[in-house]
């Protein structure tokens, strides 16, 4: 399992980064989403992988998946959801202002007014 999880984290991260390196906002946003899947799995796995244990408290359970990392992932999911919603809207606003959705601003300086 560990190999599967770590390779999945790796590919999600790589794909996320690759898309983040694109020059348009839409793929960048998708890249951020993939990256956040990657990191969520990463956090989850950082509590170590267990299979077939009860997800809730029962007496005499053999063990549990680390509940703390789960809680952390939950928080991370929620926050990244809010962030994604926000960047989508900002990107849309920028697109409506300019008529294109390139993420780079060609103007380093001088014409930024």
């Amino acid at each position, binding site marked *: 399992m560990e190999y599967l999880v770590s390779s999945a984290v790796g590919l999600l991260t790589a794909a996320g980064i690759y898309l983040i390196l694109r020059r348009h906002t839409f793929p960048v946003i998708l890249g951020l989403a993939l990256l956040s899947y990657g990191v969520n799995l990463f956090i989850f796995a950082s509590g170590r992988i267990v299979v*077939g244990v*009860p*997800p*809730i408290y029962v007496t005499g359970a053999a063990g549990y998946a680390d509940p703390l990392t789960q809680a952390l992932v939950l928080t991370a999911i929620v926050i990244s959801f809010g962030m994604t919603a926000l960047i989508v809207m900002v990107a849309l606003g920028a697109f409506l202002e300019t008529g294109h959705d390139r993420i780079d601003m060609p103007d380093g300086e001088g014409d930024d007014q």
Partner: protein
Amino acid sequence: MIDLALSFALGCFGLGLLMNLFLLLRGPGLPDRVLAVDTMVINIIALIVLYGIRSGSGINFEAAMLFAMTGFVSTVAFSKFMLRGDVIE
């Protein structure tokens, strides 16, 4: 016997998932791919239930319910987008 049947069913739905994946990647049309995803959700629900039987716990059934609901909503949303562009109009 049930275990055997369970494994069989698991295998079927698992194989089904791989077939869905193939259609998802092959297409050719977007509706096909959306259909593949929709079917994928159904197969996943089946897998969740089968695992529930195997582990003797129905704790994930609500998750399955939510999968069904969200799968439906996203299929409709994608379709609506392809039809109209605006999902909520």
